[in-house]
């Protein structure tokens, strides 16, 4: 257990800190450019869904990044603690940070006299953040390419703005604005599946792909 705590501490500094700082800065800047006072439920939802949830991309996507260098990856893979455990620790840290940051923001909105169902909005925002971050994380595992990992969740976000609900149906990102939470449930489940798939992908590849594809990943 102590070992895992130690790994967690190192990783907090190594991989999470920059994205954590960035998220905090972005959240702090928000009152300058958007209204965060006296909002009704629909407008609060817009702030949470269209802006706050994006920190999911920032926090979850780059979890694999420290191992981008192949030498480091080989080194880490050779160590006793498996890379999956390390990724899992980082993931938990990222998700906990998400939960805290979003929770903090919800309280902040509440203190600014916005009226909205807090628990639902909290969980809904968290679900969306998990989903967009999950897309990034999964894309990174598959392509091993940081640019693609950020591009896919962003494009999903764009498609969600327009054409949006018509096309994405139950996986529409901004449903709380219309008072619907069912989509958030789908997003949460899909987010978890994406993350699990991303974690498991290296094993799937090792097992089922011929060796010659393995060097350096698929790209």
């Amino acid at each position, binding site marked *: 257990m102590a070992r895992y705590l130690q790994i967690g501490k190192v990783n907090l500094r190594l991989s999470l800190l920059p994205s954590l700082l960035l998220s905090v800065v972005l959240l702090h800047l928000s009152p300058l450019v958007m209204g965060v006072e006296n909002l009704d439920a629909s407008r609060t939802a817009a702030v949470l869904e269209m802006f706050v949830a994006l920190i999911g991309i920032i926090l979850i996507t780059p979890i694999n990044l420290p191992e981008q260098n192949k030498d480091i990856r080989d080194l880490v893979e050779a160590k006793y603690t498996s890379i999956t455990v390390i990724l899992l620790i980082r993931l938990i840290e990222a998700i906990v940070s998400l939960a805290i940051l979003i929770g903090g923001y919800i309280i902040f909105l509440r203190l600014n006299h916005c009226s909205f169902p807090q628990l639902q909005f909290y969980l809904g925002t968290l679900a969306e953040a998990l989903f967009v971050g999950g897309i990034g994380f999964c894309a990174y595992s598959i392509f091993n390419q940081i640019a693609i990992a950020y591009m896919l969740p962003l494009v999903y976000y764009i498609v969600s703005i327009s054409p949006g609900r018509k096309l994405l149906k139950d996986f529409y990102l901004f449903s709380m604005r219309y008072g619907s939470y069912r989509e958030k449930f789908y997003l949460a489940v899909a987010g978890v599946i994406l993350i699990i798939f991303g974690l498991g992908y290296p094993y799937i590849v090792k097992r089922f792909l011929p060796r010659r594809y393995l*060097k350096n990943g698929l790209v």
Partner: protein
Amino acid sequence: MSTETIEIKNLNQFYGRKQALKNVTLNIGTGMFGLLGRNGAGKTTLMKVLVTLLPVSQGEVTVCKIPVGKEAQIRKITGYLPQEFSMYANMTVYEAMDYLGVLSGLRKAERKDRIPSLLEKVNLKDKSRVKIKALSGGMKRRLGIAQAILHDPRILIVDEPTAGLDPEERVRFRNLLCEIAQERIVILSTHIVGDIEATCERIGVLEEGEIIYQGSVTELIERAKGKIYAAEINHIELTRLKEEYPVTSMVSNGNHVNVRFISKDKPFDGAEACEANVEDAYIYLMQEKRGEM
């Protein structure tokens, strides 16, 4: 007569406050020149200065009479194999050579002409369609040498070329370098004494940024003459011997150990003076430098 020369005068290099090279003065002519020294002695820094990857902090450096400040001209006449040679993993061997050839300003016809023959020279002809990521370490280094001489440079600089090669590959690699060195300057750095012994006529030894020796290999050996002894001793005696004398080699032989060590004069009965080799001479030099001899 060729005019190939590298002149380095009072070169000082700094990384921030740390001084990597101290007052280095060297003259290098055609042929193989070996740069010997421990890891971190400043070999790579010196080489990077020569290929214009680092600016001169202080001092004067000219390559074939061209000051290294004129990067564009220097880059045309130098070939460089960095310590960690690597290329885009999903390029084939031929594509990589072609790309680097274009970057060296070779015309298409020249590339078509030179690349196959060079690949043959480094024994990679049948790998020309193989992707870089599928090459072994030795193949990669051979590709590295091929790319470094692709534009027929007058100066070739190779940084630790034999690191990570198996013995057979190492020998082949040295021979290849010797062949190349017939008509140009080849500078190779290494921390493996054997590489120098087999190939270089002239060497320089770097220690903590300073040149502590430059001259021929024979002269270096000459210095250590009469200072190298060999003896057959038992394991208990070995511990004591090690405390008193720098040991250059030892081989276990049943209960006994055959050791070679350095001593100013005959140390004890049973120790016999013997011919110094480059390794002995190098260690002698380092001892001398440290003032322990």
